[in-house]
């Protein structure tokens, strides 16, 4: 029962982040070797945990030899561990790119990257609300540092904006924790979810709004998304990959865990009778607005990195929109879209970086004649775009299809969801096809030289593309994963039982 491998996923990166500083002062290459080997260790042990979760159900890891709710514990569920493996693949790509570059501060940055890995693992696994807060703080501080690495005005401005918004968010989160602890007397997520319905009405609204406000910044949702434009445009390539891929996985997981499992959908529905506003309507409005605003911002910007950043924010909002329908089909759709977004966004950043290589400005015109310069990455870019927009047979296509179906189930929201989804698909198609069109424009005046691609870029690009193709070619495999994840998300009593060994609760 007490299975200790999950805690090593957090402890080993932390241990080696200190070692990377000690050994890196002798030779910078050592710290790079440490980084890569730790990620490979994490991937292998993540797959081991995945197998045992498949066999035995949720795994409870006790820390400090005190069983929950007295001590801190980690719970590895199917959702968290499959998210974790996706995260590790994206992280592997980003860190391979980091390793292939020369940097004076390689030892320090690889230490930051290791802590980033540890904190995101911790967010995905932890079963304690305050521990979650600590890991979120580590995560956002390392995000700030990574954004500001590129020593430009833009990147520093972006990271400062991110810092201000996340620290306000963190204080809101702590207020929520204070309320929860004051009322329930516990910090364990399972026990909170067991007793959350008993809290009185105003306090419930309060706690709910505090937590919602606090994770808005991580979620890149509309009123709190002003940090995106600077930080995506002003940061390095591997940081873009981390921000678009990893950050969205983590934010999504926090949203799922807090609002679907812990506070629970039953609570949401009982909310809606007594509140002046309906929670579901609130969610749909916020996220729908966010989709539209982000798409419009992406349409209007000239910088390619900015376009990709806003488009990743809008697809994250689309995922949240389909999560907040609260239906089984909606959540499945969210998972399908999430898989395609998480893998295709890093691919897009990678390939656009390679296409624009050698051009001084990073605006739309640097895409001209990209196909003749760099055919491989142009093809990869096109694959990424098709996956993101929802070309038939890709996971994103099935996701959007399911979202339409789920929209027809609840009549009151059908038009809203339909309008938003169609709108977003249209605008996405417009600006991505504009980019793709530029790839094939021939500029006869300039002699074209083929770009030399680094081996690491080719490897990681082909890795990501083959994962996407694998998911598209084997729809039953994808369906299997997504159905299991959805079941796990709705299985509130299973989550509680794996932690507290009890907890009869009526789901839905």
């Amino acid at each position, binding site marked *: 029962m007490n299975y200790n491998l999950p805690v090593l996923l957090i402890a080993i990166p932390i241990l080696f982040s200190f070692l990377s500083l000690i050994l890196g002062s002798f030779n910078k290459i050592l710290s790079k070797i440490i980084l890569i080997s730790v990620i490979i260790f994490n991937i292998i042990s993540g797959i081991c945990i995945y197998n045992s979760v498949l066999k035995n159900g949720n795994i409870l890891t006790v820390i400090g030899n005190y069983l929950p709710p007295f001590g801190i514990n980690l719970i590895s569920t199917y959702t968290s561990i499959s998210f974790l493996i996706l995260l590790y693949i994206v992280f592997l790509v980003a860190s391979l790119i980091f390793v292939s570059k020369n940097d004076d*501060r390689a030892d320090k940055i690889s230490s930051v990257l290791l802590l980033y890995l540890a904190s995101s693992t911790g967010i995905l696994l932890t079963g304690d609300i305050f521990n979650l807060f600590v890991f979120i703080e580590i995560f956002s501080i390392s995000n700030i540092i990574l954004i500001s690495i590129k020593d430009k005005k833009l990147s520093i401005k972006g990271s400062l904006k991110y810092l201000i918004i996340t620290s306000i968010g963190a204080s809101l989160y702590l207020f929520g924790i204070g309320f929860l602890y004051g009322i329930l007397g516990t910090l364990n997520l399972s026990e909170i979810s067991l007793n959350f319905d008993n809290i009185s009405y105003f306090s419930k609204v309060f706690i709910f709004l505090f937590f919602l406000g606090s994770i808005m910044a991580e979620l890149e949702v509309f009123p709190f998304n002003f940090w995106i434009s600077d930080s995506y445009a002003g940061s390095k390539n591997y940081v873009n990959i981390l921000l678009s891929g990893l950050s969205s996985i983590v934010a999504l997981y926090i949203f799922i865990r807090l609002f679907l499992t812990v506070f629970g959908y039953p609570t949401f529905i009982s909310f809606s009778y007594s509140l002046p506003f309906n929670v579901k309507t609130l969610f749909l409005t916020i996220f729908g607005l966010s989709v539209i605003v982000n798409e419009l911002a992406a349409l209007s910007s000239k910088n390619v990195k900015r376009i990709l950043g806003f488009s990743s924010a809008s697809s994250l909002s689309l995922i949240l929109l389909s999560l907040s329908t609260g239906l089984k089909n909606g959540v499945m759709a969210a998972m399908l879209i999430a898989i395609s977004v998480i893998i295709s966004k890093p691919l897009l950043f990678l390939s656009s970086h390679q296409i624009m290589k050698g051009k001084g400005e990073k605006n739309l015109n640097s895409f001209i004649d990209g196909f003749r310069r760099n055919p491989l990455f142009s093809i990869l870019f096109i694959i990424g775009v098709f996956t993101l927009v929802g070309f038939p047979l890709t996971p994103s296509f099935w996701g959007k299809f399911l979202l339409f179906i789920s929209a027809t189930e609840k009549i009151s929201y059908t038009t809203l969801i339909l309008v938003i989804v169609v709108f977003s698909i249209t605008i996405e198609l417009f600006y991505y096809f504009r980019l793709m069109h530029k790839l094939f424009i021939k500029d006869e005046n300039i002699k074209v030289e083929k770009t030399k691609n680094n081996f690491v870029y080719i490897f990681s690009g082909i890795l990501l593309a083959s994962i996407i193709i694998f998911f598209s070619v084997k729809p039953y495999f994808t369906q299997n994963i997504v159905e299991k994840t959805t079941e796990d998300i709705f299985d509130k009593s299973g989550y509680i039982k794996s932690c507290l060994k009890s907890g009869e609760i009526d789901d839905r």
Partner: protein
Amino acid sequence: MRESDFNVGKFFAFLFVLILFLFMLSPLFEEGDGAKIDKNLSDIKNRVSYFHSLKSVKEIERILSDNNDFSKYREITDSAKTVIFGESKDLENGTANLVTSIVLDYRGFDTLGELIVLFISILGLTIILSTLSFAKFEEPSFLQITGVKFVTPFMILVGIYIFLHGHLSPGGGFPAGAIIATATLFSLIGCKFNYRVSNLKFIESNAGFFVILLATLGLYFTGSFFGNYLPTGIVGKLYSSSLILIIYSLVGLKVGAELSVGIKTLYNGEKDDDR
């Protein structure tokens, strides 16, 4: 921005804040069940920390694992032990300071995260400011030099005392580290004591390494991360807390070195010391 625009913005900000305030007051004046916050606060028995402060978590766990229901722990508050200062021994942990027992034993993982937050922020400071160098400071005066030379040893002594007695009295590793770092700041300003950042970084990362190593050894000895594997003594003695004394000392060293690195970085930029 002109003055007139500013006032309008301020007025709307004030209105926004006022509405938020009224909204925040609402849970306090709720009828019926709403006063739950107040009701529960007056009773520590409804909380997890009740068992923490009586150091009887293992006892409760034993009883609960017979019933096989961990959500009903609030109903068996009677079986907790009695803790007497200077007499009780062989408890779960022998710390007289109950906050420390929570910080480093029951919720030790949080403290690990806390350490890492400090570590990563100072690391980030050195990364961010590594390309900057600041203007040199003025020479210190005679009064400052003498004062600093007199005060600094005492400050370091107090710092060491505080982290060694973190389990008996208020304080612990973090305040002690802050005091030690203040001492290094004084010596930097007062008598131009120019320490090398790389040495401090070495201390810092080694201390962090050993903290996690000690925690990981718990995996081998007790079967869980951060488990205590050293014996505990009588409550109130210096050697009463098992791992807490060692870990807090390492934390004190680490925080002191870390904050000194931060001060040095802000003082001079990392550029023009060693290398």
